[in-house]
């Protein structure tokens, strides 16, 4: 009896049992019951402690960061009383704290809490997976008048965007081992909600924090149900057990006729792309890369694979991002693809597959098994490539198998660059990070791109930065070391009991920090 079979059985079981989960007195509230909400999400956090990486991109509900992002992803002060003062040519960031903020246990927030949070995350003994995001920090200290000062190793323009990271109370988390302490399961923060229960693998429950510095939220009771299977989530939403859920496009479409529910289509930075490893003699060849880039039919992928819930990706940044380089959109052009290959000496050979000096234009494309959307992308990519005379052999594997093969084989990757172009692009493209864990998976190396990336992260001047990221995107069109395919929309369906809900442009991850519940604390009931 394998685990997989057990899991399959469990999935079927929940699927089968889903419709009848509402026992008497259970299930979601009635139509008028706008002070509580039950939401179904697909993934559960491993920990609720920011010290191990929980909520590092903001919207964590239990906690606040020094800063937060609004509906347009603009940074706003949260626990800080204003945006940071940048000094010393971009090497120091000084934050003054908001007065009168208390943790939900009644103890006041102090600069010491902020310093403790950052120092613990930077400590090598702490098993935080995103520590490298704070790599620029040289030291963090509290100065005499209760301000927090970050000193950086090098000028790092987007640093303020990292300080949405949640702040934890030193008087509770300080006495524990951050890796296994009880703070992981019983967190205490300054945020709009207080955790009331966490039944692992099943649900998390929250109640409104009456002492929240932003005013007590209107939605008093929140339940986040963990439902891994998409079909089960949809069924439970239909049966009224859930008020809202994240759903794939085909299932979200089934709620179109439901007048009591609204579908929210959140644009995202979440892209699907094919890595083309530099070291592989086929994928490392610029002509092959350009041909593939011209051969893919991105619009068809959006329509067929994503049911229209997405956008063609012409680069790592979505076309509505303020940093997007205007004019790099390009349609499918098979004639151009063939021309490029002909000029570079890739001649049509047996079975329509081209070859050059006896090397066949053929490579393997791996995708993580079980991810249907990536599988569909991979197959569509292979069939488009074949039209240009390039053979792509699609294989599925687990990440354990994929990782060692990343430097030679193409991978269907899903990544993002939200918050600031530097956050995603530097790790995706900089040659110094080639093969460093999961950074720069395609071992992309391009001196012009490297230089522009360095300029973009160091300069404080917006115009200089804009020009740099413009260069990065245009160089990627000339040398497409990744074939960017689509940006995926995230779809949410939610009972229509509140007004004026919005969604942010979302990152790759979407737990309960995104979706229309990103700002649960601001929801207003329908009159």
């Amino acid at each position, binding site marked *: *009896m394998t*685990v997989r*079979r*057990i*899991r399959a*059985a*469990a999935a*079927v*079981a*929940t699927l*089968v*049992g*889903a*419709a*009848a*989960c*509402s*026992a008497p*007195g*259970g*299930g*979601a*509230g009635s139509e008028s019951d706008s002070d509580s909400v*039950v939401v179904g999400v697909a*993934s559960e956090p*491993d920990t609720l402690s920011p010290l*191990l*990486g929980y909520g590092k991109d903001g919207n964590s509900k239990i906690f606040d960061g020094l800063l937060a992002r609004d509906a347009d992803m603009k940074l706003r002060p949260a626990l800080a009383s204003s945006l940071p003062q940048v000094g010393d040519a971009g090497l120091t960031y000084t934050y003054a704290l908001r007065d009168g903020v208390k943790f939900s246990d009644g103890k006041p927030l102090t600069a010491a809490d902020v310093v403790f949070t950052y120092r613990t995350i930077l400590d090598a*003994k702490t*098993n935080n*997976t*995103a*520590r*490298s995001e704070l790599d620029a920090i040289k030291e963090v200290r509290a100065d005499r008048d209760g301000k927090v000062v970050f000193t950086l190793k090098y000028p790092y323009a987007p640093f303020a965007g990292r300080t949405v990271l949640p702040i934890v109370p030193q008087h509770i988390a300080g006495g524990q081992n951050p*890796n*296994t302490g009880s703070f*992981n*399961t019983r967190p205490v923060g300054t945020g709009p909600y207080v955790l*009331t*229960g966490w*039944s*692992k693998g*099943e*649900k998390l*429950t929250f*109640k409104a924090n009456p002492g929240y510095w932003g005013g007590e939220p209107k939605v008093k009771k929140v*339940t986040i*149900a963990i439902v891994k299977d998409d079909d089960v989530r949809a069924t*439970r939403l239909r049966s009224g*057990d*859930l008020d809202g859920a994240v759903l794939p496009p085909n299932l979200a479409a089934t709620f179109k006729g439901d007048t009591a529910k609204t579908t929210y289509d959140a644009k995202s930075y979440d892209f699907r792309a094919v890595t083309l490893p530099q070291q592989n003699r086929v994928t490392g060849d610029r002509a092959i890369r350009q041909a593939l880039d011209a051969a893919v039919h991105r619009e068809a992928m959006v329509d067929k694979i994503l049911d229209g819930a997405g956008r063609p990706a012409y680069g790592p940044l979505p076309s509505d991002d303020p940093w997007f380089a205007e004019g790099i959109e390009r349609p499918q052009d098979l004639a151009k693809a063939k021309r490029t290959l002909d000029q570079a000496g890739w001649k049509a050979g047996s079975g329509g597959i081209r070859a050059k000096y006896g090397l066949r234009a053929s490579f393997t494309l791996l995708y993580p098994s079980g991810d249907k959307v990536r599988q569909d992308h991979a197959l569509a990519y292979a069939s488009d490539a074949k039209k240009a005379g390039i053979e792509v052999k699609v294989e599925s594997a687990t*990440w*354990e*198998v994929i990782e060692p093969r990343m430097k030679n084989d193409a991978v269907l990757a899903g990544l993002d660059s939200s918050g600031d172009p530097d956050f995603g692009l530097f*790790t995706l493209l900089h040659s110094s990070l080639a093969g*460093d*864990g*999961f*950074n720069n998976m395609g071992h992309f190396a391009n001196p012009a791109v490297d230089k522009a990336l360095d300029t973009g992260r160091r300069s404080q001047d917006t115009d200089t930065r804009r020009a740099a990221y413009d260069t990065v995107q245009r160089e990627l069109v000339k040398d497409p070391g990744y074939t960017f395919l689509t940006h995926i929309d995230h779809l949410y369906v939610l009972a229509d009991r509140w007004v004026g809900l919005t969604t942010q442009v979302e990152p790759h*991850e979407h737990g309960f920090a995104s979706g229309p519940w990103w700002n649960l604390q601001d929801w207003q009931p329908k009159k």
Partner: protein
Amino acid sequence: MARLVGRRLLFAAPVLLVVTFGVFAIAAVSPFDPVKAYAGTAALRADGQTLDRLRANLGVDQPFTSRWSHWLTSALSGDLGESSVMRQPVTQVIGERLVWSALLCAVAFATAVLAGTVLGVLAARRPGSLLDRVVTSLAYSLEAAPVFWLALLAIWLFALQLGVLPAGGLTDTASEQVTPGQVADHLVLPAGVLAVSQLPWFTLYVRQGVGDALAEDPVRGARARGLNERTVLLGHALRSGLLPVLTLIGSRVPELITGALLVESVFSWPGIAAATVEAATSVDFPLLAALTTLATAAVLVGNLLADLLYGLFDPRVKFSDM
């Protein structure tokens, strides 16, 4: 009797040692990467330095033999280590979940023993009758049915078609408190399925035991003395007929544990078994070793219990012979 217990305890120590060593060895050669399991999706954004640091912090870069001996020495001093996948000390994971598993297994086991005895006696009263044939054939088919399939069937019938019982979890989605009423509601299906999966053995054994006893001299003598059928059945036949069941109780423990594993997974019951699956797929050495030890100990105790009961209740058996 004391000697038997002492001998068994002496024997248990090497068994537990071998089992835990085996767990560490198997986990070490499994294809799962503990670091990736620990980091989850965050691993796919992590740089090499971070992954290496985690590898060192979690101690997974050491050979499994040294990890095993390290685990063993601290376990003997009462420190079971820390679970990487649950981000909690192992003792806490077990403490939080053991009670739910124990509740599930106890209810299921008691139900199975009681119902099995009743059905077995009924079937044995008139061998070959319609009732006997129905009970026996049902028992044989149930014995062949996989537990997870029974569980799915039960969900389909009681939760989906009839809508009378909740299909999973410990409480309703929207409820915050764990109340006895809710737990009782949610316990019916998983405990029922687990009981039904254990039922055939008890039924068949009791039927066999009571049937044999009914044909024996003491029973025939009792009948000849004109004692009524009820006294004969319950006073004489059942007493000797239940002896084999006593042995069975102990030896069914391993089945019960694997059954619980499946039932907990299917019904998302927050017990030890669900944690075992989680620990296995994320190569969480300390948690896996502790849970395996626990399961092994349960099996050994079950066997010992069976032998003791047998020795106590069956005058033909002497402890000194065991």
